[in-house]
C-alpha cells in the first residue's frame, strides 16, 4: 500500500488538474447573484498574476495585489451580474473563491398600539349634556413612529366602528338564535306533554282491558 501511495497521489493530482475548466484568454464570463450585498473575490494562481490579467466588473476594486494572490471587493446588489474578463495575454491556472453575503428582507412590521378608554366628559354647554366620548389616552408606536400617524389613528377608529357594528350584528344574531331556541324548547315541551298524556291514556285503556279480561275469567 505504501508503495502505491505516490502513484495514488499523482492520480489525485491529475484528477484535480482535469477538474479545472478551460477558459480562453480574452473571453468574458458572467455570474448571476440573485441576492447579494457584499462580494469578495480571491484568486490564487499557479503563475505570477500580471497587472490587469483579470478584470471583474461592475463596481469591483482590486484591494490586494500579490504575486500569486489577488483580491477584489465588489459592491453588489440583488440581481447583480458579475463580469469576469481574462486578458488575452493571460496564460495561468487559478482557483477563484467568491464569498458573498446575502441580504434577507423581512416584511416591514408596522404596529401601532392604541389604548382606548371610555371616559365620561361633561361639557358645559347651554343644554348641560353629558356625552360619552371615546378619547385616545395613550399611544405607543413600535418599532418606529410612522409619519402618517393621524391617518393610522383614523383608520383604527374606522375599523373600531366597523368592529362595533359587527359586534352589534353578532349580538342581534345571538339574541335571535336564543329566541329560536326558546321557541323550540317550548315546542318540544308541548310535544313531550302530549306524548305523556297519550301514554297515560294508553296505560289507562290497557288497565281497563286487563280488568275486563280478569272479570270475564272469574265469571267463567
Amino acid at each position, binding site marked *: 500500500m505504501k508503495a502505491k501511495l505516490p502513484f495514488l497521489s499523482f492520480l489525485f493530482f491529475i484528477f484535480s488538474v482535469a477538474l479545472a475548466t*478551460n477558459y*480562453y*484568454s*480574452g473571453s468574458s464570463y458572467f455570474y448571476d447573484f440573485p441576492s447579494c450585498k457584499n462580494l469578495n473575490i480571491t484568486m490564487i494562481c499557479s503563475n505570477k498574476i500580471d497587472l490587469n490579467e483579470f478584470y471583474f466588473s461592475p463596481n469591483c476594486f482590486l484591494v490586494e495585489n500579490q504575486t500569486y494572490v489577488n483580491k477584489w471587493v465588489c459592491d453588489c446588489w440583488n440581481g447583480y451580474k458579475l463580469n469576469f474578463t481574462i486578458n488575452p495575454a493571460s496564460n*495561468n491556472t487559478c482557483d*477563484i*473563491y*467568491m464569498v*458573498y453575503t446575502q441580504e434577507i428582507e423581512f416584511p416591514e412590521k408596522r404596529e401601532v398600539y392604541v389604548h382606548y378608554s371610555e371616559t365620561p366628559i361633561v361639557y358645559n354647554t347651554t343644554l348641560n349634556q353629558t356625552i360619552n366620548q371615546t378619547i385616545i389616552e395613550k399611544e405607543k408606536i413600535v418599532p418606529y413612529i410612522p409619519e402618517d400617524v393621524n391617518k393610522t389613528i383614523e383608520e383604527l377608529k374606522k375599523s373600531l366602528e366597523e368592529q362595533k357594528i359587527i359586534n352589534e350584528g353578532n349580538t342581534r344574531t345571538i339574541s335571535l338564535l336564543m329566541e329560536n331556541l326558546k321557541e323550540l324548547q317550548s315546542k318540544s315541551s308541548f310535544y313531550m306533554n302530549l306524548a305523556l298524556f297519550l301514554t297515560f291514556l294508553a296505560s289507562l285503556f290497557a288497565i281497563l282491558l286487563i280488568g275486563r279480561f280478569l272479570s270475564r275469567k272469574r265469571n267463567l
Partner: protein
Amino acid sequence: MNKKLVTLLGLMLGLGAAFGALVTVISNVITYSFQSKVPFELVITSPQGCVDNTECNLGTVYGGSTVELGFNVTNRANNDLVGTYKIEIIPRNQTLDCNEISSVKLIDLEKEQDIKDTCVKTDGSVYFNTSETIAKESTVEKTLKITFNKALHEDNYTIAISILP
C-alpha cells in the same frame, strides 16, 4: 482487507465531497478552478509537408520567385480580439536583409495588405508584423504571398508564422 480499506476510503471521499458541497451552499461561497488558454490557434494548411502547424520549410528559394502559404487563424475567445501576426523568414546559411524581399502580402476574402514596410532585421533573419481584429469564435482563412528580390541569395528558407494577442 484491501477491499475494506478501499471501501472506507471511498466512503470518506464521498462524505468529504458531500460535506464540502453542503458547506459551500451554506456559507455562500462559489469556488472553481480554471486554466486560461491562449485564444488564438494558427494552422498552416498549405503547402503540405510543413515542419509543423506554424513553421514551413520552403526548400531552396531562388531570387525573383514567389512563395505562397495558406493558413487558418481561429479566435476561440467569446470577444473580438486584436491579434498581431509575426511572420519570420529564416535562411539556413545566408544572411537575409529586408531589401531582398519585394513584397509580403497577407490576403483574405475581404482584403489584401502588403506588410513589407514593417520589416525588422534580426540576427540573420527578418520578420514582419501586422495586427488585425479577429471576430469572436471564428476562423479566418489567410494566404501569405512572399515575393523575393532578384538579388536574393540562393538558400534554404523557412517561414514561421505566429499570432499573439
